[in-house]
């Protein structure tokens, strides 16, 4: 019964959202905005449950090894301190909460993000090997685009920037659009199956 209700709700909401996209009725647009706000509320509550589950899991694992204990203390301690800062000092521009975000979290995120540059280099070193004709074409195209996008490429020859633009705007864009068409059709088909009640993976395998 519970599953049937969930499927009916999903189908009803799906049909409503499809209709509201094509029909400019005020009550439909209001329903759409209401559904969006409900989604945000559901996600907020789910987030609270998720955070509490993580803290509970960390505390449960704290007794196993010294490393787990240290990780648990750091993680739970940070969560409690940041929460306290937010509740007590607010989340305004000059608040301790904002200071912690700007001076602690943002630098950590930036540090991890900066790893991407090195990972791109290592992945390219591994991947750009001319073993076959196709991989040889890939290597040549990558070289043209790499050189065509930096000043030294234009200094070498003015053909490189034009070649890079042509590669990106013609064959690469064609392939990208073909993949996007396939992905779009897959998404549309899956969405239609959800609306029709055929697709039920969001119920967890039932």
């Amino acid at each position, binding site marked *: 019964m519970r599953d049937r209700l969930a499927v009916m709700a999903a189908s009803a909401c799906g049909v409503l959202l499809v209709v509201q996209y094509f029909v400019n009725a005020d009550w439909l647009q209001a329903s759409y905005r209401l559904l969006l706000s409900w989604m945000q509320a559901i996600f907020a509550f789910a987030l609270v449950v998720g955070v509490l589950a*993580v803290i509970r899991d960390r505390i449960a694992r704290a007794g196993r090894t010294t490393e787990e204990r240290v990780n648990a203390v750091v993680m739970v301690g940070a969560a409690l301190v940041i929460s306290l800062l937010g509740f007590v000092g607010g989340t305004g521009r000059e608040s301790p909460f904002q200071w912690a975000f700007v001076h602690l979290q943002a630098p950590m995120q930036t540090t991890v993000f900066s790893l991407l540059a090195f990972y791109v280099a290592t992945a390219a070193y591994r991947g750009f090997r001319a073993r076959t004709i196709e991989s040889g074409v890939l290597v040549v195209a990558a070289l043209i685009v790499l050189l065509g996008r930096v000043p030294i490429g234009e200094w070498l020859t003015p053909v490189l920037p034009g070649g890079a633009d042509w590669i990106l705007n013609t064959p690469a864009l064609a392939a990208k659009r073909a993949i996007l068409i396939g992905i779009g059709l897959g998404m549309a088909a899956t969405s239609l199956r959800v609306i029709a009640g055929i697709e039920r993976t969001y119920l967890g395998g039932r």
Partner: protein
Amino acid sequence: MFSFACRGQRPFALALLILLSSSVAVLGDNGSPVADAGLWGTGKIPEFIAVLLLSLVMVIGVIHVRRRGRPQLRPLPPIAAVDDAIGRATEQGTAVIYTTGWGGDMSRPTIMASMEILGSVASRAALNGCRLLVPSHDPVIVGVAQDTISQSATVAGRPDWFASSDVTFVTQSQFGYASAFAGLVARHHPGSVFLIGTFEGEALILAEAAHDAGAVTIAGTDSTIQLSFFLVACDYTLIGEELFAAAAMVSGDERAAAAVLAQDMIKYLILLLLLIGGILVGFGFNLNDHL
């Protein structure tokens, strides 16, 4: 350019031609039958027709599959490699790590397809007794993943294998999630890593972390930008709609296979429209101006 997953599609080509003719006949009277009506959004008639067409083709696909049986889907190397990947992790005595990425939530069709594949991976991991770790950035995905894996373990006859603590919410932060994943990989040294879902900038960090740990990586995403990273950094990659075809393949559901068949039919139609449009542009008639 197009990859057609199914074989033996002549009856569908005929049904599609009939549909196309009827759609053109409806539009041909005044170009936009309801554009002047107060209720309809302007400029959305082509999209409405596309939705109708896809729905009709899917219905035809389901009817066709019920009469003729499940269509034969082209073998996908990443799906064929799943057994070897899990077997490798089992032999090494390590875990399998599966993630749906940071970019999507449970309302996204890609994540739904990923859950289908997760169910298949979980049942094989359960049969092998191999640990399956699923870190996620979304608490709703965690709940669905736990149910999916639990169900798969029960169907595989190993309900005791599943540990809910192995499917965890990590963090909502993108690079916090990437750090957590990299830490998980560094601590557990998984034999295989599955990166199937919606990814953003963290994709290459996850793929390279898995590669550095010596894991076999099987990836699939709906993002064309991250797909290029996966193609270079991962051992096996599901490209574009292959992700949805893979979900249909592992589910064994004939209606999912019918949807894949319908997608192929629509691709034929798009190819036909591209050819017709290209020829018409050569004669100075731009179809796009009249839609």
